[in-house]
């Protein structure tokens, strides 16, 4: 919870307050950005861009909106905006049919035993668009309609990307689980 006094000091552009706010939000911001971006450098860029937006738009924030939710939305919008700007170069990315469905329960079992960082690594390997849609839908709670509006795609495509991401993750989880089992054997 960010105290209002800290926000007020940031509104007065006090450098120390900006530092304290950055420190307070760092974990949340980095968690969001690293989910959407493939590497740490990109995540850091997005986080700093988002924080800059937070500082510059702080005065426009409606007080009835919780600060954390507002910050979260700004960070997600920053990541999505950046992706939209880069979409042209991603146009060659082709949509592949999702592989055959795996047994979700088995994957779920492995997932709960996995290290968080290992799962994050698997998530990074999911293709860009699918990863972003999965993040928006499964992690951040956006609806397919909202995602379609945000990314300029159809709701059907959004659903496909979520499904594709899930199956990619499940496959990867199972592969990793089997590899681990083989090593221990």
């Amino acid at each position: 919870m960010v105290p209002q006094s800290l926000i007020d000091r940031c509104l007065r552009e006090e450098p120390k307050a900006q530092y304290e706010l950055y420190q307070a939000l760092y974990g949340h911001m980095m968690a969001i950005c690293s989910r959407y971006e493939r590497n740490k450098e990109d995540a850091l860029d997005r986080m700093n861009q988002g924080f800059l937006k937070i500082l510059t738009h702080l005065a426009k924030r409606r007080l009835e909106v919780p600060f954390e939710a507002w910050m979260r939305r700004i960070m997600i919008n920053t990541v999505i905006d950046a992706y939209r700007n880069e979409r042209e170069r991603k146009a060659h990315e082709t949509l592949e049919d999702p592989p055959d469905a795996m047994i979700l329960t088995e994957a779920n079992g492995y997932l709960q035993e996995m290290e968080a960082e290992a799962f994050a690594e698997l998530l990074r390997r999911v293709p860009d668009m699918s990863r972003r849609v999965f993040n928006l839908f499964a992690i951040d709670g956006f609806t397919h309609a909202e995602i379609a509006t945000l990314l300029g795609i159809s709701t059907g495509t959004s659903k496909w990307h979520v499904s594709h991401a899930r199956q990619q993750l499940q496959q990867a989880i199972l592969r990793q689980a089997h590899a681990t089992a083989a090593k221990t054997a």
Partner: protein
Amino acid sequence: MTPEERFDASARKKLDERAFPFEEAHWASMRQALDKGKSGRSAWGLWSGGTAALIAVVAGLWWWNAGDHARHTEKDGSSATTVTGTTIETNAARSDEAKQLTPAREQVNMDGSASTAKAGKAIDDQTDGIDQKERSAESKNAIVHKADHISTSHRAPKRTEANASLTDPDNGQGPATMQPELIAPHIVDASIAELVGDMGTTAPGQEPDPIGEITPGAAISSEDLGKKEGTAAIVEVTEVGNGSTKSAEEMNTASHDAPTASGPTRDQEPDPVAICVVEKREVEKQEVPATAASPDAPDDVTLTHTTESEAVQDLLPVTANAQDSATTEVLDPADLAGLVPHHAPWEIGVFGGIQTTTTRYSGSHSDDWRSASEAMRSAAFGLEVMRMGQHFGVGTGLHYGTYEERLSPGELSELSTWIDPYWYLLPMDTTLFFITDTIDIGGQPYYTGQSINITVNVPTQGADTTSAQVVTREARTIVNRVGYFEVPLLLDAHLVQGRWQFGMRGGPTVGLLSGRRGALPNMSNDGYTSFTDQAFREVMFGWTARGYIRYRFNAGWSVGVEPMLRGQFGNGLEGGDLSRRSSALGGLISLTYRMH
């Protein structure tokens, strides 16, 4: 809850478990971004404010100059009729003096009315025969006229009336029949009385000068007038107007007496008027003979003084108390002769030189290659037209310049790793015990058997890891060139010291893209996007600023060296978040011609 929802929840929970310890280095980069944004805002504000202030100052000076010029023009047109000069050394007054240096100007002085043409011609005819001495006397006439400017304006109309009656051919009194008695009182009233009073020629405690007591309408004789050095000039005016040779000779005598009479007749401080007369004669020695040598073409001299400014310029070295003392002190008459007046308004210049351009890229994955951008030299040249004032100017032109940089992005590759699971049989040595028989002893079964060592193959899952390094961008050295034609709004501030001119010039520019060549790294295809495929802004706003030192080597031409700064305000690229901003620092050589 469906299996999919359970998976999503598990994923959410797993991701929430991650922790990101704060890193100071990240804050350092954030701080840099904040400072950059703040300095960018302040720099933009500084530029905007500075530009607005500069424009306001230049506009104010421009307006002031235009108003001053209009006032001078108005005075020139009406000075002979209304004689409204209230300052001693206005340009109009000096211009009037200059006009009276020639016969052609004499008619202006003598007519002094809107109906100058006919009367002027009559006087011109009469004055054709005036010899050089008379011209010298006419030159003195200028001094009287100058003194007239000292008088207050309420006196002036009387003089105007006198002059009008003097030159009006329709009033039954042609110039030849004009009586001095009719003229002198008015003129004395209009000029000398004020001159004596205003110039302080009557010392405190002294008896009032008799001239000061002369009233309009009262007759005054030439003898009376001749007693005073100031009156001598007035006699000349009258007599020249009459066209009488005899009077002219008397006038000449009187005029020569005037400066010397000022000493013995007044035991006071030297009369400023007398000083001016002496100085004026020096001018006559230089200029009048040349005019008199060609009496058939008296307008020759006039043509050389077609503008007020030129006349003023000619008078600058001999004007004792000129306002523009800075100019008169610096300029030597010998040097001045070959130079165009420094305030000749229009100036055309060309320049060319070399500039070093710096281009900064940012955004859109430029981190890995933007530091590989090197500045390069390129050519810059242009043409400018300026309207120059004494210290400020404004103008425009057409500039051409190219912004160049050398990019040397390194190789970029992606390492892809695939893990493929597979099954294989893993041989395992083991011992098998085969039961061959069962023996019952006392109700207890016993087994007999045989141990056999054997190797069995156990199915095992393995994983193949396949790695592939794909070069997405090869290393390359590219020279990028983008050319612009720029139309600037130039504001100029300068200082003239003799033949040297020091100044600064600059302002905003509107650039039109004229050509581009090169490529930029990207993240797709072969790793490079040609400039021909890259969207550029066709119109770019920028700025230019130069300092200059110029040397004027003849009448209108000057050469100079000019350090220059120029740049673009915005992103030169269109679309995407890749930004390209260029600036340049260079040196120019200029050749300038001041039109006159």
